[in-house]
């Protein structure tokens, strides 16, 4: 993989009137990385992308591409190419004309353009489709044409604004793999915007989790998933059971939380919050459904939760048990389906067990809705 061109955001603020869309963003994206901005809609991730591509001037701070400050440089002069959410293929141009639009602008001859278009069409497995109109292609094919058009401009950085959101599930999963492969092949920096954690986790080298204009956490997929820095990151990425409470005891990087409804529970403090929690602080503890398992009933301790099963679900790869803990606290448990026999527990009281290293404590904070 070539070194590629990095992108840096320095103290980036973007305001629209009184509304702050991006608040003091600091991100270093390494050259050749696949970097994702993950967040719910309206969190400012598209705004960051528009600032990088040059459609928007930051209110404060700088965008650096390959170390060069992009202040005052228009989108047509930046070494970036953007893949729009709606793809924005030119409807009146044939596929090959679409792909080589950047060459037409540069004044290349029709013969050269056609040649380059055919190469790119081969790459995206659409050989011979160059004379069709975009409207004559399927969703996934259009998607690939948009990628080819962006790559034809030979950008240093490719920006993708939720390009898969319009596709159906199967195609989306297929395109994830394809995008990742294309990125490895061309070796340029990809900056990917998504609200789909699955996309972010499967494709990215690094992910920035965004909430209401603020970047909560930057890290690789595992760090984001296993070691969330904030309550928002913990609740937005993947499923999590949240227990609210106060820190009652600290021992090294573990904390005993006296939860509001489920008694005292032990958990690991996430890396970003080492040394930041004090006894008596409001805290939130997160346990993933798959980190819980069924224990022999009657077991007690600071890594056991008692609950009553309300209903069960078979999801194929997992059995989901929905339970109600003490005081009506909802807890979800996922048990991998390994072909074992599985009894119906509905209505029964059960005891759940987890390992303290699989539970994470962060300071109390805003959760992602849904």
């Amino acid at each position, binding site marked *: 993989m070539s070194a590629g061109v990095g992108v840096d955001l320095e103290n980036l603020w973007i305001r629209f009137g009184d509304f702050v869309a991006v608040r003091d963003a600091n991100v270093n994206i390494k050259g050749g990385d696949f970097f994702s901005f993950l967040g719910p809609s309206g969190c400012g991730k598209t705004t960051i992308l528009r600032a990088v591509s040059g459609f928007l001037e930051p209110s404060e701070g700088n965008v650096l591409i390959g170390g060069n400050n992009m202040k005052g440089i228009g989108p047509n002069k930046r070494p970036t190419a*953007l893949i729009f959410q709606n793809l*924005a293929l030119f409807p009146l141009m044939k596929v090959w004309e679409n792909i080589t639009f950047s060459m037409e602008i540069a004044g290349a001859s029709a013969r050269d353009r056609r040649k380059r278009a055919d190469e790119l069409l081969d790459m995206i497995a659409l050989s011979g489709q160059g004379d069709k109109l975009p409207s004559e292609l399927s969703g996934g094919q259009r998607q690939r044409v948009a990628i080819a058009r962006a790559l034809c401009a030979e950008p240093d950085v490719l920006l993708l604004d939720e390009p898969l959101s319009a596709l159906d599930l199967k195609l989306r999963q297929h395109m994830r793999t394809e995008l990742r492969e294309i990125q490895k092949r061309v070796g340029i920096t990809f900056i990917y915007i998504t609200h789909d954690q699955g996309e972010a986790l499967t494709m990215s080298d690094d992910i920035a989790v965004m909430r209401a204009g603020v970047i909560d956490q930057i890290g690789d997929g595992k760090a984001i998933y296993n070691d969330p820095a904030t309550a928002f990151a913990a609740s937005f990425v993947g499923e999590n059971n949240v227990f609210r409470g106060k820190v009652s005891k600290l021992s090294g990087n573990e904390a005993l939380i006296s939860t509001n409804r489920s008694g005292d529970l032990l958990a690991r403090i996430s890396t970003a919050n080492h040394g930041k929690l004090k006894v008596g602080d409001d805290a939130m503890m997160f346990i993933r459904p798959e980190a819980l398992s069924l224990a022999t009933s009657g077991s007690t301790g600071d890594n056991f939760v008692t609950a009553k099963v309300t209903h069960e679900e078979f999801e194929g790869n997992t059995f989901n048990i929905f339970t109600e803990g003490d005081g009506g606290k909802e807890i979800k448990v996922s048990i991998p389906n390994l072909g074992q026999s599985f009894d119906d527990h509905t209505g029964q009281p059960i005891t759940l067990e987890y390992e303290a290293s699989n539970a994470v404590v962060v300071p109390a904070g805003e959760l992602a809705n849904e």
Partner: protein
Amino acid sequence: MMTSDKIIRVSIWVYLAIFFAYLLGPLLIMSLTAFNSPGFPRATPWECLTFDWFSALFQDERILNGIKNSVLVGIGTIILSVSMGLAGALMLTQIWPKLRATYYTIIIAPILIPGVVIGISTLVFWDRVNRMLGLGADSFLSNGLFLTIIGQSTFIASYCMLVLVARLQRYDMTLTEAALDLGATHAQAFRKVLFPFMMPAIASASVLAFLASFENYNTTTFTFGEYPTLTIELAQKVRYGITPAISALAFMIVILTVFAALFNEANIKRKEMVAEARKDATVGELAGKIEVPGILSRNTPAMLLILLLVVTVSVIGSSFVYSPNQCIADVHEQKRIETELRIQQLRDQRAKDAAEKAAKEGAAPVQKQTAPKAGNNSGFGGVFAPSTLDNSDN
């Protein structure tokens, strides 16, 4: 159920018939008058089929000059109105949203202002400008051509803007952004992406602008100066009485319109057929030329167009051979005979009346035979009749 269905269907047809009679009836009658020989345009009584009114039309210097000026003004109006309309439409999409409603009202206002007012104000304003620049009455600014184009464009540009805005609303602004992102300048993005997209609307706006300009009278009447347009010439001609030559002109305009409409329809149909053919085309065919069935198969408008063309050419061809002179002479002769006959009849009738009267009043010898009694048939109660004086003496 059946019968009420039938009634509805019949009444729809009747309604349609009335509707189209109302729309097209006058055009039909007028077209007929262009081919009838009497000197005043009328469809009945039919006298002789003639093409002379067309040659009369083509010999009329003023009409020809009017057409030339109208075309000149029309082209100028297209260029000015469509570009102003496009600029106005683009501005509407770019302007600060809170100002949009106000801007729209301002830009639409010329449509609501009476053409007469626009005409007068154009004349007054540019006359001032002309004088301010110290130019004479025959300068470019005041010789009529410029004034008419400017005056008409004042409101035609608003029409154009409406047409263009409708298309522009369907434009995806990210397409321009995509072009910019791929390295295009704003001018290139406009030329290569937005402009081709707007082309159909620009074409319709041009047609609209030309037609609106061609038929305009009330603005032009103030501004035409040395360039009287067709409508101005026609209006002036009508003051001295109208001839079927004007019907002939109108007929030609109707035929040209039908031609244009059919051509447009045939074109649309052809595009549909190309799109249809592309769907089934193989990759190889797409790269080459798309085979579309010949123009005549399955394309009704094209067939009608060709039919109309053939009919028109043959009618024009036969008009050079056909001479209505014999017919006109015959009609003339017949009319003379009829008139004489009528006169004779009147004379006979009068003689008969006189004889009857003489027989009836034979007993009264005082009355003179040579002074006919006016009676109450004449105007003013017969006060000017010669016999009135006699009676008043009694």
